[in-house]
């Protein structure tokens, strides 16, 4: 316990302040290195835009920017590059994916977080996550050889029965088509939409749920009145992240959509998407500057679309999670006082 006893054996090592400069000089260097790496991310994003734009400019100059997007004629052999068939295909398949995928994803998220027995929670979560481990090209292979042939009969029946509606009744249906592509996309966005929904639903304060149950609500009423309103913004954000995935998904769609760059007559006809067409024509574009410029322009449109959608989605999710956390804190604050009373 005596202070003197410590210093008998050896003098204490000098503090970092007194030590030679090397150890201290390394600090700002290290910080500069890490900051540089972080700055690299911003530089990269800027680089993406600049490079894609310089290569795509020839196509925009040839066709005009708005005309490039809204002209319904994609015909490389005549040097006409109006990407509307591709943009429309991207929108159609993504819409199908959202309509099928989001309800299923949200239902599974609600079931896993609110209804299922605790022991099942972890295994079910892992199983849903496993869907994300299957690569895009494998979904494409499966969609092409299993989904498309087996669903053809059902598709034909639906197409004939709903022929009076727009987007239906296009006569004999194609094997690969918009619907199959949308269905495959629905499966592929399911894990991410479900994961984000679970995260957001988990931030709903227990007090709100307990209050609903204490007022006599059934489980479903509790979900409808306490859980869903609270997590709506976050779930919307999750769905938009799914949309971002669906829009950019390439290989699976390229395999099951038929890669024909014209808008099909119905939901069950062949078509193409921005990403799928890039893959389809990339090889033949080769050294043709205009053609490859047009494909890169497609990539740029895709990039800007996903950037905007993901940005908005992130904003919604982050805001929802923050609201969830602060809501929990605010609700819990008075608790200790209540507990002691």
């Amino acid at each position, binding site marked *: 316990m005596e202070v003197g006893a410590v210093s008998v054996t050896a003098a204490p090592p000098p503090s970092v302040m007194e030590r030679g400069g090397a150890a201290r000089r390394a600090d700002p260097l290290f910080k500069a290195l890490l900051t540089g790496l972080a700055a690299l991310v911003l530089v990269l994003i800027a680089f993406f835009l600049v490079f894609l734009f310089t290569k795509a400019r020839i196509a925009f100059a040839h066709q005009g920017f708005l005309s490039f997007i809204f002209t319904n004629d994609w015909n490389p052999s005549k040097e006409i590059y109006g990407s509307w068939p591709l943009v429309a295909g991207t929108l159609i398949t993504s819409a199908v994916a959202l309509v099928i995928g989001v309800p299923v994803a949200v239902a599974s998220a609600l079931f896993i977080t609110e209804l299922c027995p605790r022991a099942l929670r972890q295994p079910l979560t892992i199983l849903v996550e496993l869907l994300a481990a299957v690569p895009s090209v494998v979904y494409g292979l499966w969609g092409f050889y299993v989904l498309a042939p087996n669903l053809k009969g059902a598709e034909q029946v639906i197409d004939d029965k709903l022929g009076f509606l727009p987007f239906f009744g296009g006569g004999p249906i194609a094997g690969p088509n918009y619907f199959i592509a949308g269905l495959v996309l629905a499966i592929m966005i399911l894990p991410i939409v479900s994961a984000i929904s679970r995260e957001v639903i988990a931030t709903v304060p227990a007090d709100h749920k307990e209050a609903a149950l204490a007022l006599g609500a059934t489980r479903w009423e509790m979900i409808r009145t306490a859980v869903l309103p609270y997590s709506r913004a976050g779930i919307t954000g999750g769905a938009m992240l799914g949309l971002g995935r669906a829009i950019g998904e*390439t290989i699976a769609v390229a395999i099951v959509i038929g890669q024909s760059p014209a808008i099909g007559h119905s939901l069950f006809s062949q078509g193409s998407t921005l990403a799928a067409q890039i893959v389809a024509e990339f090889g033949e574009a080769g050294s043709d500057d205009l053609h490859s410029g047009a494909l890169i322009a497609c990539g740029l449109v895709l990039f800007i679309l996903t950037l905007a959608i993901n940005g908005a989605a992130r904003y919604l999710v982050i805001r929802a999670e923050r609201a969830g956390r602060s809501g929990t804190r605010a609700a819990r604050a008075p608790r200790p006082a209540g507990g002691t009373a």
Partner: protein
Amino acid sequence: MSAALDALAPVAGRRRLTDRAMRALLWAGTLVALVPLVLVLWFLLQKGLGALSVDFFTTDPTGNFLGDPGGVRSAILGTLEIVALASAIGIPIGVGVALYLVEYGGQRWFAQAVRYFVDVMTGVPSIVFGLFVYIVLVVSGIGGSFAGWKGSVALALLMLPVVTRSAEVVLALVPDHLREAALALGAPRWKVILRIVLPTALPGLVTASLLAVARAMGETAPLLFTSAIVMGRSWDLGGRMNSLPVQIYNDVSSPNDQIVARAWGAALTLVALILLITLVARFIARRSRLA
């Protein structure tokens, strides 16, 4: 107990029915979500197992349309090489960015901007990364045209945001008192980070990296534009290189049944590889306290 329950008015029939129906609906939704997983795995096993043989793993694709199509040895080798190099580039940078965000960035606007763009980058389609690398490295002809290492660069770009996002979560979990204790003992900041923070977070970082590797391994589009395809075996990352996803994509639409069978076998191999890595990652995550 029962008296208290009796005192409560029973839930009206219509409400109870709605509750039942909606619960059943949510349950059904969950089942529907699992159907594709079962179907994909079932068909992979059914069609893929038949294609597997010793020759399948020990011969290269011949490229012959008729006759023996050959196996997928060069594709497996190529995938492993390309992904290994991509990890060597992407993981250190990804972890470095995460270190900046946790140790120095805090809530500064610059750190917030980086965080936001890393988030946004995770959503950028892989084909855009492929196009970018194609323009910057392939078209410009740096070191020849198509090459395995260029595919690695594209995959590294894809892995970077994934690694950063999960590494940031793990690093933020390292208790502050460890950092403070080390600093109080006179250690400089860089030493605290390298000797205290990183080792503490290591299992979590390994998990994050492995999950990113698993994701990169299945990507096709970036490789299609950057490392192209070649049949023969190659150790040379400087030349064109085969890989499993690109091999599958090439085989899919072939009218030759044997080649389609090879695609199923290659798909099964790829999924098995990815699942293996995912499982190892989860196992490490479970054993560590921080992840």
